[in-house]
């Protein structure tokens, strides 16, 4: 059936020849373009294409200043050192590094991980470390071993979009708890847990980023950390401490990790993605003995073993290079970028806008004047060649439309200034429209908004 039907009354058509028998009807195609559409698990149904996510496709173009992603800037890494180290690794230990390894992770890197955690006051044994494919996988495995569908995870509001996505993929309900300038509020935490239990729900753990939280940039003070721990001990609630940015403290020495204050009630997640490089995908979980055993079995079920070559590569880097000094140089670089962003915000932002003042990490959290909607404003920003992540991505309950997350990690200071200038212009025009149309409060959006993918700068 090479051709199907030619419109009979069209001037250009050369094939009009009357009379002719009625054209044979082609067989009707009825498709949803996915023959397995009825077969997916319930948890798969929320995995959908998203217009917001599609808008991030322009973010990596050079014309656009992207303040949207969370890519560390690794251009300052000494590539010659890494190259020599890898060459040496392959020549001396190549057959081990390219072989299967332990589901828990290789012993030498688990020892080095304990040294790294020592910088934040954690005393740990390598036996209690499970190496994972980035700390994202640690989060996935922790959720897998703890959470049934319908269970509750308590999280700060706002919280890391990648964690919310993981929780959702296990059909976990996220209950948010408000923060103040010192971190998560313990009275609200206690209330939320009590209310969940009274409603017959089972809160499995508190998920918290105590240092330079993604997205808010807020850190828990030392006092607040003690209060959070005490509250969780009183409530008998496990704490999952996610700490990718702890060593990127820009203004002071790192604060002690929650895990340094409490062994049994805290499950700690760490990562080399920000202190070395994310492409190796090496992170870890430090867990009490029984939990660690479950995590290891879950890891074997998921991947057999975390990437062995990457573990050897990171281990060699830590052994052959002054990595702590490298972090000092990273911090100097990020400090200049953060300062550029804060100065530009001060200079350009329209009246009625507020923002956090992060002492480390990658992100500033902006609260726009009432009425603005960061999600519906994003296309305007893309037209003006600046990208950010709408605040709605960081809430499981539809809030955050008045907020946006700006990252200062990837673009250099002059680009950050230019990006903030463009954003301010976008906000002014949006405010103008809102004023014209007399719009009231910022709207609430249904469902979880996507954040940018990991490849977005």
């Amino acid at each position, binding site marked *: 059936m090479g051709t199907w039907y030619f419109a009979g009354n069209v001037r250009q058509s050369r094939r009009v020849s009357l009379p002719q028998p009625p054209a044979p009807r082609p067989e009707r195609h009825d498709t*949803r373009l996915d023959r397995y559409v009825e077969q997916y698990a319930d948890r798969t149904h929320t995995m959908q*294409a998203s217009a917001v996510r599609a808008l991030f496709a322009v973010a990596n173009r050079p014309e656009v200043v992207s303040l949207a992603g969370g890519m560390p800037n690794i251009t300052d890494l000494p590539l010659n050192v890494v190259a020599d180290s890898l060459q040496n690794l392959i020549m001396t230990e190549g057959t081990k590094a390219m072989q299967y390894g332990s589901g828990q992770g290789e012993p030498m890197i688990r020892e080095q991980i304990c040294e790294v955690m020592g910088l934040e006051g954690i005393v740990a044994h390598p036996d209690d470390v499970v190496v994972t494919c980035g700390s994202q996988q640690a989060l996935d495995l922790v959720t897998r071993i703890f959470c049934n569908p319908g269970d509750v995870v308590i999280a700060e509001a706002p919280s890391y979009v990648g964690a919310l996505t993981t929780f959702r993929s296990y059909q976990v309900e996220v209950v948010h708890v408000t923060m103040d300038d010192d971190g998560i509020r313990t009275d609200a935490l206690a209330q939320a847990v009590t209310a969940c239990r009274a409603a017959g729900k089972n809160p499995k753990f508190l998920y918290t980023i105590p240092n330079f939280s993604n997205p808010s940039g807020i850190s828990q003070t030392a006092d607040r950390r003690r209060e959070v721990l005490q509250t969780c001990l009183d409530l008998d609630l496990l704490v999952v401490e996610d700490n990718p940015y702890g060593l990127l403290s820009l203004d002071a020495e790192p604060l002690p990790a929650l895990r340094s204050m409490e062994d049994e009630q805290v499950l700690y997640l760490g990562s080399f993605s920000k202190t070395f490089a994310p492409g190796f995908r090496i992170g870890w979980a430090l867990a009490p003995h029984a939990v660690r055993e479950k995590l290891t079995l879950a890891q074997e079920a998921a991947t057999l073993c975390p990437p062995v070559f990457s573990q050897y590569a990171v281990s060699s880097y830590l052994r052959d290079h002054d990595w702590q000094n490298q972090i000092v140089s990273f911090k100097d670089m990020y400090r200049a970028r953060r300062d550029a962003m804060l100065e530009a915000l001060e200079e350009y932002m329209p009246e009625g806008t507020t923002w956090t003042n992060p002492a480390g990490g990658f992100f500033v959290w902006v609260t726009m004047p009432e009425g603005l909607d960061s999600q519906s404003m994003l296309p305007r920003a893309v037209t003006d060649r600046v990208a950010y992540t709408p605040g709605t991505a960081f809430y499981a309950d539809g809030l955050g439309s008045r907020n946006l997350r700006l990252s200062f990690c990837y673009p250099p200071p002059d680009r950050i200034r230019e990006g903030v200038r463009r954003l301010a212009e976008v906000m002014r025009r949006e405010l103008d429209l809102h004023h014209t149309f007399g719009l009231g409060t910022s709207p609430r959006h249904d469902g979880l908004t996507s954040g940018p993918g990991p490849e977005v700068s």
Partner: protein
Amino acid sequence: MSSSASLPKVIVLAGGLSHERDVSLRSGRRVAQALRVVGHEVIESDVSADVVELLRSHPDAVVFPLLHGEVGEDGALREVFELLEVTFVGSSAAASRVTFDKSICTKVVAHAGVKTPRQVALPHEIFRELGAKALVEGMGARLGFPMMVKPARSGSALGCTKVDDLAGLPAAMVAAYAYGSVAVVEEFIEGTEVAVAVLDVDGERQVLPAVEIRPESGVYDYAARYTAGATRFVTPAELDDEVTAAAESLAVQAVEALGLCGLSRVDMIITAEGEPVFLEANVAPGMTETSLVPLAMDAAGLDLGEVCSRLVLEAAAR
């Protein structure tokens, strides 16, 4: 099919800086692959400052633009092709410009006698100058609810909102203006959503079977368009013969009124009374894995690569 030695080289342009970059890249990859399968040498390129140099360094190549959204679909880039005397597939710059802007396209098609929704097109400045309240109320009174608010120049349903009452109209207007300075407000046409592709190549016109769109969620929005499984497509559409003929006739009338050539797609609603109503036309219809035109080709027994190759050969012979 000719031997590959005699087939022209093709430059597939996709990406760009529009809001539909992601969709365009998917369309570009699919068409490039289909053209390779039938034997063309294909260069895939984004649209950036290097593109003029690329076109100049391949003077014999035929450009296949798969850019969606502004610049790609609004005629600007085709104007450049015409200026540089680059051979390209599809409609002219002028026809693209008219077709892409819903505020102009709808009027041109209506003028040709095609049924279109009642529509108001307004730039955002007018609301500031004349006061939004009266204008918004006026639109509500003239068009009635529900109504559709759309950016005048955009695709993939981006920035489009169905508005059920007056209270929802201002936010929908603001959402549309985020995509551009002009918005169109139309009466909402209840009915079956159908797309009809028209293929003009080698002096022949072929109207492909109408594709009926049945989104599971009830709304053919971005997620319903680009999530496989989220929408059911029935091709040919389940319509009576007379209605099918009317839908095809509408598509042809629109294509002629707009002066389109090559491959175009006309989107419409079939009302409960069986009357097709024009919604929009596309000079660079989506070619992604979930797009409508490839489904129509499939139902017509046409191969995507062969159709694209015919379009390339025709452009090269022009």
